[in-house]
């Protein structure tokens, strides 16, 4: 692992910027900076979002786990719980349906001139994230740790080698992508 590079804060800030430019470029070229395409996915009329996400997960998963097997990368799974991942996810989804962009695509949409994304979405997410900061101490005591499972990954859950999960999940993703393609969605 390139540890000296990872701790060089200045270079990392520049790398973050460059990787963000590439990410924003790809989001725009993929079409997911457009409200119509994003809301089309939630209304199950347009499957562009799912095609992009599943392709990204498939390619990313194979590569990142391969890099881990070579010792060139380290996983950073987020910790979670039913109280945080599921309930927070449902709240997020509710907002997603109303706004029609997500936190990454809203920023990308703003870059293409979408004013509703910039003045509505970006400002709203900032306020919402800040309200969470205020509510955090209370939520932390009550609901966020309900049924906590920590930084668990599926291979750890099943106590198997990573590839025993990576390969079937890859096949599942390919089948799913083919089904979407065949259905003409």
């Amino acid at each position, binding site marked *: 692992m390139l540890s000296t590079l990872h701790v060089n804060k200045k270079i990392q800030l520049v790398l973050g910027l460059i990787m963000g*430019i590439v990410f924003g470029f790809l989001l725009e070229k993929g079409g997911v900076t457009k409200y119509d395409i994003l809301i089309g996915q*939630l209304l199950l009329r347009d499957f562009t979002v799912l095609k992009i996400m599943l392709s990204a997960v498939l390619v990313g998963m194979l590569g990142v786990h391969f890099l881990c097997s070579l010792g060139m990368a380290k996983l950073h799974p987020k910790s979670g719980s039913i109280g945080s991942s599921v309930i927070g996810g449902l709240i997020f989804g509710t907002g997603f349906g109303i706004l029609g962009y997500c936190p990454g695509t809203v920023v990308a949409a703003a870059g293409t001139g979408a004013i509703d994304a910039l003045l509505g979405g970006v400002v709203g997410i900032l306020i919402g994230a800040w309200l969470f900061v205020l509510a955090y101490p209370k939520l932390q005591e009550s609901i966020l740790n309900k049924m906590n499972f920590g930084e668990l990954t599926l291979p750890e859950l099943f106590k198997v080698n990573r590839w025993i999960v990576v390969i079937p999940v890859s096949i599942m993703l390919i089948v799913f992508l083919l089904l979407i393609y065949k259905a003409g969605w």
Partner: protein
Amino acid sequence: MDFLTAKQWSPYVAGALIGALSWVTFVLSDKPLGCSTAFSRTGGMIERLLFGSKVLDRPYYKKFAPSIDWEWMMVIGIVIGSFISSCLSGGFNWLWVPDFWSETIGNGRTVRWLCALSGGIIMGFGARWAGGCTSGHGISGTLQLAVSSWLAALSFFVGGIASAMLIFHVLI
């Protein structure tokens, strides 16, 4: 170089390249792609600017310090990247109300702005509650096979489909 000025790429190609970008972020920066932490950091930076450094005592800022980091720079990069891409294809244009919204709900700017703002507030709150967004959980977390991310990503879409269906098929 026609591909640079193309309006849209195949979603499979764009997606696969985002997957390949995640290899690079893991190797060069030891980090997964993600966006929503940058929002709470920015909120903290604004709060600090307005009310001084006593706000740093908030427990959440002890976990995620309100300062500029790799991910924050990445979010700035996203704006630049999509701006470049849309300028190259001629797709950049100032737009208040998206077409689909205009056709179904109306072309009023205030209504669209208020809905985007309130949706954003709910989403920002939910993103921090779940500890990530469609990028951090939906792509980066699921590709790492994190249990939290698979649960969160499924919940994003269950909630999103339910709320979009309610708005466009029941309320309108």
